């Protein structure tokens, strides 16, 4: 997994609450059994004029020329709610989004971000609104710096906002760790747990075909 330490890039405002994963990547845009080929379907319902079409809606923020190189999203509460589809994060990442700044995230989406090297940074609404005001005015450009080591978002005008993130999530993102590898280091403890648990809760441990009674 790609590590995340610090990023200075164009940030786009999408200040809406409850942006769900059906909006981020509509199910109709997920055409194959895989994690690729999803960027084109990102925000398809908002980004294109027609459902299923490809003619850009010029009003949608990511279609505006000044936000073409967006790598950071500034958005509203409960971002990524709804379906658990990890395709939402795969689509964002493939498009080039590396960090999302929101007052809150839906829990499954937040985990999915961390597993794919995308930073979910929590910042209060008021701070996001002030960052958006700065970006929209465009006086100091459209870029922000997101610094995961310092847990800070910095604007070109010198403003600094401290963001919050889960400790383990931060650690995994900083080193680009693979969670399965980390967990398999505890293989002995997992085995010991299972040995104990088989005695305590035998009904948990199914026997395969033998359980296939009518």
């Amino acid at each position, binding site marked *: 997994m790609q590590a995340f330490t610090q990023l200075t890039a164009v940030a786009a405002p999408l200040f809406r*609450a409850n942006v769900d994963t*059906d909006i981020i990547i509509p199910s109709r845009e997920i055409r194959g059994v895989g994690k690729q080929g999803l960027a084109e379907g990102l925000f398809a319902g908002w980004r294109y004029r027609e*459902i299923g079409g490809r003619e850009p809606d010029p009003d949608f923020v990511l279609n505006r020329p000044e936000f073409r190189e967006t790598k950071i999203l500034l958005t509203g509460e409960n971002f990524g709610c709804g*379906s*658990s589809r990890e395709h939402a994060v795969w689509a964002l990442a493939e498009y080039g989004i590396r960090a999302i700044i929101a007052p809150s995230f839906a829990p499954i989406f937040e985990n999915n971000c961390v597993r794919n090297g995308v930073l979910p940074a929590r910042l209060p609404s008021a701070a996001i609104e002030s960052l958006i005001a700065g970006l929209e005015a465009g006086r100091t450009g459209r870029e922000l710096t997101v610094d995961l080591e310092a847990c800070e978002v910095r604007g070109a005008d010198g403003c600094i906002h401290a963001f919050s993130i889960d*400790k383990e999530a931060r650690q995994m993102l900083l080193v680009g760790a693979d969670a399965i590898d980390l*967990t398999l280091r505890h293989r002995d403890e*997992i085995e010991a747990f299972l040995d104990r648990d088989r005695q305590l809760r035998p009904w948990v*441990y199914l026997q395969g075909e033998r359980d296939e009674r*009518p």
Partner: protein
Amino acid sequence: MSAAAPLSLLDKLWLSHLVRELPGGTALLAIDRVMLHERTGSVALRGLAASGRPVLDPRRAFCTMDHVVDTRPGRGDATLMPGGEAFISATRAATREAGIRLFDVDDPDQGIVHVISPELGIVLPGLTLVCPDSHTCTQGAFGALAWGIGSTEAEHALATGTLRMRRPRSVRVTLTGAVGAGVTAKDLALTLITRYGADGGSGAVLEFCGPAVTAMDMAQRMTLCNMATEFAAVSALIAPDERTLDWLQGRRYAPVGETWERAVNAWRQLASDPEARFDAEWSLDATEVAPMVTWGTSPEQAVAVHAAVPLEPRPGRPTESYRRALHYMGLQPGQPLAGLPLDAAFIGSCTNSRLEDLRSAASVLRGRRIAPGLRAICVPGSTRVRREAEAEGLHEVFLAAGFEWREAGCSMCFFAGGEHFGTRERVISSTNRNFESRQGPATRTHLASPETVAASAVAGCITDPRPLLN
């Protein structure tokens, strides 16, 4: 350390699965069951195979075909969704390779993952169960810690038998009083989401308790827990009671004989201790709840069926979200919901497609017909539900009323490029999500109970079901 520190149900489930604490406040938690479906499970199994890691214990993982599979009578592998067959064949191949039991398209136990898992006794009290699907919380109705994850986390659970997880907040939701006639668990859930917000349960496990919960049958309890993800909650829980045990006994993967007795003894301990502490307490008097219907594009945008669209946004929410929802739904502030003409009605989904739901809808439809020009569809949650409904003759009630009667699956709960009701059509639906284009291109979804859907289908417009109940 005090030996008798009071524990919540969540505490008990957490502690009994704790393999070890990890640095940074996370824990390694043992996972007892992994459920998969062809939409997201296929991706997880492929990812795992590509990394060369085996499934730790394939006997504790199960897979079903529900999301992509066609639901028209006489179906095979062909799907209306473009490319759907690739998901079906990939799932078949990947589960065979991994040695995971698959409930295939033509299996008598096939159905929506959260409907068949309880039916087969795959979920049991006290278990941890995960699935790459957000409505896994449904299964918390059995006193199991069951929650939705992403595909990468599903790979983790399959490969290691564990997940790395931060302990969720706990919220106790006490439902007092008793619901009136024609009011259901769906209406309670929509009332709670509207009151506490679509992010009100963020990061929490909600424990539902109180007399209104105790009085519910298992189907209603599942409906209530199903909607927990619409609060952004991690999951929901209901402590198992005699009703839960009766319901589970004899199910295929439930223990038998002496093991059943042992299990039951353990499960009777699965309740929050009287002095247990919660991070938050919510309550609702069920007596005050009316049949609900959503007006917007988030489940938090709901009102009583006889009420009107709110005049302003929810406090603290961006005005843009409110305006967008109204524009999308083609509604005005202050407009009454009752009487709004409908194009279609849908009864189905993991929220409301169990036998009890179909019975309730049929009791409204019996001897009546749906409004002319309206399209109405009923999709049982599982092949077993379909069989049992047909044995009672419910399918005849639906068909006589003008409903289509389908094979089991998710069907038009979500739009994957295949079947839909039509662009910008207005649909009343027993599902769980009214998101933009969730059910079809620009489709306007109004969420409601099966009773309200059935009554509205008859009236041809959104309507209060209570006058039609006998």
